[in-house]
């Protein structure tokens, strides 16, 4: 009774889908979070009667019988659509409007990419993420700085006591990918480049297709709450309906078993 296994693939796929929805919903308020989406595709087919084969009377079988074997996961894709902005007034909260990622250095020396721009100042004055990973290229804010300004083009400047003109400290660089959906999510809002995403292309904000920096704003999660709830209902119902087929197959097996009393 193949139907049991076919329906089981359907139930498994819906279970995965609920996992993805749960993760999205848990991150509905996570800064810079990008929603995941599960993609399904039909499984391979079993040929019971081949198309074009010779039938008993010497004629050709026109369509044949191919029985599908269920469904499987084809991808879990990150949706890199822009999230909404939240005004925070914090001068170190930076949001990217448009394409691009902030580059941060992990403790092991590799680069990671993030859209969560809630930066902090470390004890030695460098701009770091909430986990303490320094922004690349590094920007060091002097301790005595009065105000910090980040322009849309990424230029960071501060005013120092006794000086009237702001002093420029450096420029934030952004990285972009041909296929951002191919990035590997590492958790903590970080992504790393993979074979699928291609190599990072770096550039200045506002130039060559890169987005601009908005100071005092944070990019919110791009999870669409209503959409996720609808997906949840659909996944649950699809799960139920597949379990009904398993019951039906079981009923049929029971009646076969009961033939012999």
């Amino acid at each position, binding site marked *: 009774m193949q139907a049991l296994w076919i329906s089981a693939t359907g139930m498994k796929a819906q279970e995965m889908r609920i996992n993805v929805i749960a993760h999205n919903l848990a991150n509905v308020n996570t800064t810079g979070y990008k929603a995941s989406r599960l993609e399904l595709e039909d499984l391979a*087919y079993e040929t019971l009667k081949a198309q074009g084969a010779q039938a008993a009377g010497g004629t050709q079988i026109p369509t044949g019988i191919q029985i599908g074997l269920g469904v499987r996961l084809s991808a879990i894709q990150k949706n890199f659509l822009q999230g909404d902005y939240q005004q925070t007034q914090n001068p170190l909260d930076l949001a990217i409007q448009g394409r691009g990622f902030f580059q941060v250095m992990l403790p092991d020396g590799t680069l990671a990419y993030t859209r969560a721009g809630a930066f902090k100042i470390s004890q030695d004055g460098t701009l770091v993420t909430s986990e303490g990973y320094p922004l690349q290229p590094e920007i060091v804010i002097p301790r005595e700085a009065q105000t910090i300004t980040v322009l849309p083009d990424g230029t960071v400047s501060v005013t120092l006591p006794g000086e009237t003109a702001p002093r420029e400290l450096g420029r934030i660089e952004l990285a972009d990918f041909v296929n951002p959906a191919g990035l590997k999510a590492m958790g903590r809002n970080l992504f790393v480049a993979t074979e699928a995403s291609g190599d990072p292309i770096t550039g200045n904000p506002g130039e060559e297709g890169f987005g601009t920096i908005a100071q005092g704003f944070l990019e919110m999660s791009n999870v669409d709450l209503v959409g996720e709830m609808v997906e949840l209902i659909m996944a649950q119902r699809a799960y139920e309906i*597949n379990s009904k087929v398993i019951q039906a197959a079981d009923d049929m097996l029971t009646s076969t078993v009961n033939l012999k009393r």
Partner: protein
Amino acid sequence: MASIEFVSGIVGASVGFEGWLEVISHNLANLQTPGFKRHLLSFESEEYETSETEKGFLIRPQKVTLDLSQGLIKATGNPLDLAISGEGFFVVQTPVGERFTRKGDFSVDRNGFLVTKEGFQVLGEGGPIEIGRGREIVINESGNVIVDGELIDTLRIVTFPKEAQLIPEGNGLIRVEKGEAIASVEFAVKQGFLESSNVSPIEEMVRLMNVVRLFEAYQKALQTSFEDLSRKLINEVIRV
């Protein structure tokens, strides 16, 4: 009257019902697979003579066909999700030749080409479609791919003559035999949308109930004819 042929006919039909159940369960497993087309199983019956006065029918599965009716078109907002409203398929280049699909959840690969989730290139009139790192990708209803205001290519949307055989291969791909692809005219490509599976859960549930009850009825008939046969056998043996 029960006979050996009658019994074998019922057994054959029961096997057919199992195939039917498999088709239903495959359809329901793909209730939410984008671009999935419902499978229909048709049966054929064969007449045979059980005795000089009686005739029986054998029922067996004959073929599986695809129901190509339009699935619902669902908004996703993702610029690389494409749905075809109307007739036609996207053309995909696979290592074993051109394949056709209605599953338009495309991506851009590391080289900037428009690809399916398996990494197969989606074909336009001029071959693979290179989108690159375009900021603004617009695909209009006639399938023109416009990247940053520049027309790159036009998606190939094809259809097939009636006699062509569409054979599902899994991964949302369809192989076509006995029929040349012809450019479709009655379609609109919808950017930011995906076509849902055209499986109707209600219809499949009705079929499911139907197949289970029919199967039971056949089993009952089988059981009765077994009893009938053995009674006849015993009576005839006694008479001898």
